[in-house]
């Protein structure tokens, strides 16, 4: 099957700055794809390359098998939900949503009918006559979504779509976006710096750093088997074990990661001291000192919780130790 988006050795340099450097990327049709990375890692530039706001310095981009280099944004069957939503302040909501159809020359009755349907899809029926300034942030986000979807894009691009929303709204929108994507079957490519968001929403994740992709895979792969120290660190929550510590524990002298829930408090094993105890509802998290390193241990609900300051012994299965490349 033709991939929805294919990058082959794509670079985008701004003078001496290599914003994107030799990226290979395949986004499958109908996939929910996340581009995850810290700011300045090149993920947003990649999104803009797909949208057509940027042109690659080198390499080739294909969108559903068609060459995209040199094709302006208005001739691509791709639509974007902007980080600041970019709703037109002088138009009401209905005209905002109908904008794409209007510039294509579709008659007023037809385009308003489609726009109204799109507003229903994002659960804002009857909001058409309002101005963007009269809506809340969450509502504007939905309008931006409707304005993009009404054009029936082959690929929908979302630039930090939930960044400006508060936590509760963000969680709700995560679920809605996911079910919307499943219902429409459109390829979604979204950019985020929030690893939780990427892991919970995406079918596949590409982790960016310094203008390149460090690792691509399913959220489970990224979480369980981070390829490098950077990925383990950025995706977070895993314990990073230094080569020295690994050697002292009798393992290989290499960087390794160990998930907190894989660690058990046992009668024998590595000696550690409990530094902190946090009750998290579904479990209890211990912060322990192991030699000079600080580790997190996730105890399941109902397990015995040791007191702060008590010495304990930790054990884990050797297959839970995951060795990584040292590279960033």
């Amino acid at each position, binding site marked *: 099957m033709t991939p929805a988006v294919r990058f082959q050795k794509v670079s985008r340099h701004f003078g001496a700055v290599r914003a994107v450097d030799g990226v290979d990327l395949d986004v499958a049709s109908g996939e929910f794809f996340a581009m995850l990375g810290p700011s300045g890692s090149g993920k947003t530039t990649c999104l803009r390359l797909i949208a*057509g706001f940027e042109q690659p310095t080198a390499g080739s981009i294909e969108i559903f098998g068609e060459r995209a280099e040199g094709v*302006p944004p208005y001739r691509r069957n791709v639509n*974007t939900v902007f980080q*600041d939503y*970019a*709703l*037109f302040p002088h138009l009401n909501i209905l005209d905002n949503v109908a*904008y794409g159809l209007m*510039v294509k020359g579709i008659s007023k009755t037809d385009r308003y009918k489609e726009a109204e349907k799109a507003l229903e899809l994002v659960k804002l029926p009857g909001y058409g006559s309002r101005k963007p*300034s009269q809506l809340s942030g969450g509502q504007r986000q939905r309008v931006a979504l409707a304005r993009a979807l009404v054009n029936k894009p082959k690929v929908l691009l979302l630039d930090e779509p939930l960044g400006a929303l508060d936590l509760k709204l963000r969680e709700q929108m995560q679920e809605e976006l996911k079910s919307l994507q499943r219902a429409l079957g459109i390829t979604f490519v979204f950019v985020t710096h929030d690893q939780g968001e990427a892991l919970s929403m995406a079918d596949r994740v590409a982790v960016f750093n310094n203008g390149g992709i460090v690792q691509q895979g399913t959220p489970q792969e990224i979480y369980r088997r981070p390829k490098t120290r950077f990925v383990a660190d950025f995706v977070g929550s895993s314990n990073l074990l230094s080569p020295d510590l690994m050697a002292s524990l009798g393992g290989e002298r290499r960087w390794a990661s160990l998930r907190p829930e894989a660690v058990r408090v046992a009668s024998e094993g590595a000696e550690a001291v409990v530094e902190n105890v946090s009750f998290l509802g579904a479990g209890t998290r211990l912060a322990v000192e192991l030699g000079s390193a600080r580790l997190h241990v996730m105890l399941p609900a109902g397990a015995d919780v040791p007191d702060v300051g008590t010495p304990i012994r930790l054990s884990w299965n050797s297959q839970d130790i995951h060795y990584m490349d040292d590279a960033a």
Partner: protein
Amino acid sequence: MRSDRGQKSPLLLKVCAAGGLLFLHLPILLIFAYAFTTEEKSYQWPPPGLTLKWFAVAWNRADVWSALALSVQVACIATVIALVLGTLCAAAVSQTKFFGREAISLLVILPIALPGIVTGIALRSAFSLFDIPFSVWTIVLGHATFCVVVVYNNAVARFRRTSGSLIEASMDLGADGFQTFRHVILPNIGTALLAGGMLAFALSFDEVIVTTFTGGQQATLPIWMLEELIRPRQRPVTNVVAMLVVIVTFLPILAAYYLTRDGDQIAGSGK
């Protein structure tokens, strides 16, 4: 000040404020009053009698009409030039980054800071250097130098408040450059352009100094008035024309003021 509402200001301050305003505007009323005087050779206070005949006289004088026609023509052309060039320049300076951007921004604004007499002399020397005969167009060129600034300043302020992603959003939704200009850029900067254009028109309409250097034998309305003051005959006609100039220049400025004031809401970004 809103916070001072209800608080009484001292009487002395009120008197001073009233005095200041009177000082600014009483002379203008005097000009209006002399338009109705029966004494035609000198300005005499109080007017010996009141009459409306100078309106009829002004109406029938061909030189008034030709001066007015020239002024309107020059102001219109200069405004159109200023609108096109000022908007393009504002768009370039506010939407893109390029080498020398700050310098260009400064150079565009400079003509309004430069004394009119310097601009006038400079243009006159340039015209004679290139053997360009004086015409409507030389006056228009002179006026355009400062009209562009007014439009540029208005447009650049509005461009800066308009979110740059609006243009990208429009392109993303399938609009080409022209459609984006027509449906997104123009509605967002329209009132600023209208205001800038009106100010430019008003500036051009009452310009004297640059015009004396670039006009040759032809007289715009303000130049005609200046010449008329020297002649001790039918003086009140000048005052009738002065009233006209005040009205023609004041109304656009007032409109521009209201348009840009409301512009805050119109141009509020979609964030």
